[in-house]
């Protein structure tokens, strides 16, 4: 299957409200799709439906043999949880049966020093915790990576490094990437395709077609600042 994911007529309702209606798109294997749209457009709902965490109508077809790595939006973790980064990664090796050194490889990929991984998760900074979640997602060699708002809770210099890292990992591992982001300039540079969810009609296409100033203003209700490189 040349496509990693095929979605047809996807409709998701939450408590009687239609969040996504008749959504259809495909994601070619090895490509990067960015999902953008204003708050409340249903970006996270789409991801949660794709991983089967929400009931939906329509069809979601992953290529046979797909292994999903999922990095959720900023999690509400208690500061004093006595679980170290290592505890968390070790939990994955024991559940999926991946070899223990896979955790070291993943930590190396995301540039998280072993000493940091040995700390309780609640003491990690926003960026360190995101990288730990990414390391967790990369264990067991996933074929698809779903990344919801990678830079929430990360300061600006950290943001740029995080995107560079995601791109490096995507190329090194040959991953298909699905990314929710508010950083339109980053989307412009890194994504092969952009899916723009909005109140009226969702649109799909390459960044240069979707990210025009007129369309951005129409979707977000205000001109958004972003710069091409």
């Amino acid at each position, binding site marked *: 299957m040349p496509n990693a994911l095929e979605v047809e007529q996807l409709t998701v309702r939450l*408590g009687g409200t239609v969040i996504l209606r008749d959504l259809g798109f495909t994601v070619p294997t090895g490509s990067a799709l960015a999902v953008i749209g204003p708050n409340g457009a249903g970006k996270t709902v789409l991801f*949660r439906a794709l*991983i*089967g*965490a929400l009931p939906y109508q329509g069809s979601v077809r992953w290529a046979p043999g797909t292994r*999903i*790595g*999922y990095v*959720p939006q900023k*999690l509400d*973790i*208690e500061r*004093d*949880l*006595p*679980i*170290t980064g*290592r*505890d*968390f990664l*070790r*939990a*994955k090796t*024991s*559940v*999926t049966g991946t070899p223990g050194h896979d955790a070291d490889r993943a930590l190396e990929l995301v540039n998280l020093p072993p000493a940091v991984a040995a700390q*309780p*998760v609640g003491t990690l900074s926003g960026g360190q915790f995101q990288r730990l*979640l990414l390391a*967790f*997602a990369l264990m067991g060699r996933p074929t698809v990576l*779903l990344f919801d708002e990678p830079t929430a809770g990360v300061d600006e210099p950290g943001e740029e490094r995080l995107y560079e890292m995601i791109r490096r990992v995507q190329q090194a591992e040959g991953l298909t990437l699905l990314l929710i982001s508010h950083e339109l300039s980053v989307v412009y540079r890194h994504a092969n395709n952009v899916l723009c969810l909005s109140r009226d009609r969702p649109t799909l296409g390459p960044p240069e077609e979707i990210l025009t100033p007129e369309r951005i203003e129409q979707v977000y209700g205000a001109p958004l600042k972003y710069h091409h490189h």
Partner: protein
Amino acid sequence: MTMSWTGLALSIGMAVAAGLVGCFAVMRRMALASDAMSHVALPGIGLALVLHLHPALGGLAALLVGTLLIWGLERQTRISTETLIGVVFSLALAVGSMLATGDELVDALLGAPGTLEPWELALGLAGAAAVAVFVLTQRSRLVIALVSSDIARTTGIPVARLELLYLLAFSLTVALGLRYLGVLLMGSLVIIPAATAKHLARSLDGMFAIAVAVAVSATLAGEVLAASIHRPTGPVIIAIAAALFLASLLARRR
């Protein structure tokens, strides 16, 4: 009151189960919910007394039904677990108080260790072992689901089933402690040692070890002390556990 070896074995088993199951109850922020949850045993105990059955079995049956009810309602409706537990378990306390009265009610609420039949001991130890095995073998799945149920799903963990099994292990633990601690206090033996451990530990293994140590030592010291000062066992156990918790607050302040 004299202590028997069989009684000792059962209280250690119960304390180990309570310490382990409590770790995840505390980390999942269900401390108050789990306290309320133990109240559901009361109508079962009351009904068992009316029907001349063993009170602990009635309590266990009610806990299992209550657990299934909570789990099912949570999946069918969009009401939060906290709210459901608040409603279902307060109702249980009310119904239970109507069924059991007088001394029976006091025993059910506060616990009354009597003599142990061999089958009670065997059943109790088997239940404690089942809970300990569940928590220790499923710890990885429980940790991942605790951090994020969505991550757990993409890791191939059947989240809803795991949730149900955890709640059942929790109910079984509460049932094990009914004879010592009663409906009102058993929730505390699950929560207080784990809360102490959460405060002191820096890793999951550390948390398990401290929680079990606090639960077992509070239970044993409580039994000995209660016998020598002629007071009911349950409240003494909880007072000791709470004292250890307060001491842990001081210990961490460097």
